[in-house]
């Protein structure tokens, strides 16, 4: 009999598929962080004064803050002075005006990532605002979206072209001093994406941004702001990948969503940052603040995330349900293999009457990984008739990994209904043997069992990405049963 555990070792040892480095001259700031760096970033980006002030305020606040230590993750202290806070691919002259002008090497990189902008975007009807390190290099479908009245551009372009919208909405959901990492991001963010849907506009296609950290020793601090005005709707997907490096890299992003009356925002993430090697060396530290505010009546915000990468994930996409009858949803699959650590979950803050929220969290742990669900359901006295349903399931593969669940609930209105279900199961030897006995390989069997476990979440992903997520899951977990 061939030893199953040997196969497992071989499969776990599989190389990170996106681990290549693109050799492009970068225009970077030297490592270090002080007010001068914040000013330099703002200057490089030719920002208006209000934004520089905003950054400086955030920076000064950040200096008074302590790095949070409450998460169930362990890592060596981060030296914030050892990080370069700005890295942009150096364009030959000015920024490219069309995709044909984009450095072919960059385009090749995207092709390796599986997102050939020319082909796939057109075929799939997806507009990709590709963020390479910190600056957007290509935006497709701008025209088509423009006709529909949708603004979809890099954050820098938005600052230049729509400063009034930025000034109005930036930091209105995640204030600059919200938390340590959000404050850091607010001070030094270099780029990101901006989406604005005017009243009544349904976005004619899925919007998508791929982030990728390329230059060594640069933190990536992107910022995404999506505003859906009255009756507008949009589905947005973010995918993330990073090259393999021995040292750890910091990623501290902020995402803000604003939904006005009857608006809908669906935000899906497939996160595949480099997780470190099988001994836990290297990998991305992913400290991200994502929050949406259902500001208007009957508005709806859905977060769907498939988190397979990063050495450390610290992330709680949340919803503030202010508008009457507004709905918040959180569907999550978090995978941690080898020495990955994930502390993720959501917060649902019910403020308006008859607000509803749904939380479905599926955690998968393998190897020596630690996987934590941390969630808060808070129902304020004003939220009469609020309802929440929470389901947290954990799947353990092997004996050395761990799953933790910390569900917090604060209910301050007696008419509210809060339901919580939780389960922990092991990929049973029984399930595996059952599949083997039917002639199915161990690898296929594990994929099948895990996909079954995650099905309810995958159903929430836009179709073309559900397939990708499933593939990603197989790569992350291939043979991780011991």
């Amino acid at each position, binding site marked *: *009999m*061939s030893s*199953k555990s040997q196969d497992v070792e071989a499969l776990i040892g599989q190389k990170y598929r996106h681990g290549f480095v693109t050799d492009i001259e970068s225009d970077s700031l030297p490592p270090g962080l002080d007010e001068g760096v914040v000013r330099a970033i703002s200057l490089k980006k030719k920002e208006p004064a209000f934004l520089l002030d905003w950054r400086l305020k955030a920076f000064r606040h950040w200096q008074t803050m302590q790095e949070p230590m409450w998460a169930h993750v362990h890592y060596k202290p981060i030296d914030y002075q050892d990080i370069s806070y700005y890295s942009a691919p150096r364009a030959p002259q000015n920024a490219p005006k069309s995709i044909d002008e984009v450095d072919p090497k960059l385009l090749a990189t995207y092709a390796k990532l599986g997102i050939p902008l020319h082909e796939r975007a057109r075929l799939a009807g997806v507009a990709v605002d590709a963020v390479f390190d910190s600056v957007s290099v290509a935006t497709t479908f701008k025209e088509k979206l423009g006709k529909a009245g949708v603004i979809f551009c890099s954050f820098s372009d938005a600052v230049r072209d729509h400063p009034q919208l930025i000034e109005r909405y930036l930091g209105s959901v995640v204030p600059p001093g919200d938390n340590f990492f959000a404050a850091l991001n607010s001070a030094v963010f270099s780029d990101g994406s901006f989406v604005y849907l005017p009243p009544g506009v349904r976005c004619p296609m899925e919007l998508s941004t791929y982030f990728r950290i390329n230059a060594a020793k640069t933190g990536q601090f992107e910022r995404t702001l999506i505003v859906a005005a009255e009756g507008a709707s949009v589905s947005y997907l973010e995918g993330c990948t990073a090259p393999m490096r021995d040292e750890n890299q910091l990623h501290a992003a902020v995402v803000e969503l604003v939904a006005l009356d009857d608006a809908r925002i669906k935000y899906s993430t497939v996160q595949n940052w480099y997780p470190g090697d099988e001994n836990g060396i290297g990998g991305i530290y992913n400290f991200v603040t994502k929050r949406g505010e259902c500001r208007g009546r009957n508005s709806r915000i859905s977060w769907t995330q498939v988190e397979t990468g990063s050495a450390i994930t610290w992330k709680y996409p949340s919803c503030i349900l202010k508008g009457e009858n507004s709905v918040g949803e959180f569907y999550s699959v978090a995978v941690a293999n080898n020495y990955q650590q994930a502390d993720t979950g959501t917060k649902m803050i019910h403020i308006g009457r008859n607000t509803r929220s749904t939380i479905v969290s599926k955690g998968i742990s393998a190897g020596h990984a630690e996987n934590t669900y941390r969630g808060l359901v808070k129902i304020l006295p004003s939220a009469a008739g609020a309802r929440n349903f929470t389901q947290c399931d954990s799947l353990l593969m092997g004996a050395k990994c761990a799953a933790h669940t910390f569900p917090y609930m604060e209910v301050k209105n007696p008419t509210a209904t809060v339901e919580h279900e939780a389960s922990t199961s092991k990929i*049973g*030897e*029984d*399930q595996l*043997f*059952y*599949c*083997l*006995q*039917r*002639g*199915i*390989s*161990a690898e*296929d069997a594990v994929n*099948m*069992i895990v*996909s*079954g*476990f*995650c*099905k*309810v979440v995958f159903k929430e992903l836009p179709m073309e990405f559900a397939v990708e997520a499933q593939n990603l899951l197989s790569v992350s977990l291939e043979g991780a049963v011991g």
Partner: protein
Amino acid sequence: MLLKISGLSARVAGKEILKGINLEVKAGEVHAIMGPNGSGKSTLAQVLAGREDYEVTGGSVTFEGRDLLALPAEERARAGLFLGFQYPVEIPGVNNVYLLKAALNAKRKAAGEPEVDAYEFLALIKQKMKLMQMSETFLTRGVNEGFSGGEKKRNEVLQMLVLEPKLAILDETDSGLDIDALKVVSMGVNSLRDPKRAVVLVTHYQRLLDYIVPDQVHVLSAGRILKSGDRSLALELERRGYDWVVESQVA
């Protein structure tokens, strides 16, 4: 010889369960293995199917002349060995039909045959489901998810009919079935009887053998086959229990 077991010994968690089993099964035959609880019947079935936590400590098994024990479980299955589980496990979220199609295609691929397409497969499975008197809702349900005991056993036989194994080992497929379900399951098994195939039934009850008539009956006790005979042995066991077989051995 389809299956030849010689002096097979095996242990589970350090405890010797099988202590030198000898058994030969020819194509076209049906064998019944009976015996008291804890005699090693299920262990024998699991060892033949290749479960890893069962450690073979001695003896040999050949399947169509090949060394069966050298093959991993999935290759045994693809070679045509099927185990109908005593307690079929639930796999939530994995579609029943999807698993079965993957199983059939794994087997076909190993045999160098083309994979079955979705239409062909649906036609095939609908035909077999009709035979097993299963409702079409089975098509959309998860593997054994929320199935009753009887439904699980029917599902095992359905899988067997689709995979058409050379050797089917059915581990207490009759337990927990009412008489109508027993008839349906038996009919399913009988429909597979054919000069090229063999069936090994592991059972406690003679009742099953009224519907699936065996060529040989073996009594397994304390890890050894103590007595073999024809169908009349099963009837005698039903009348007299197992003790006399054990005692006659001691004497």
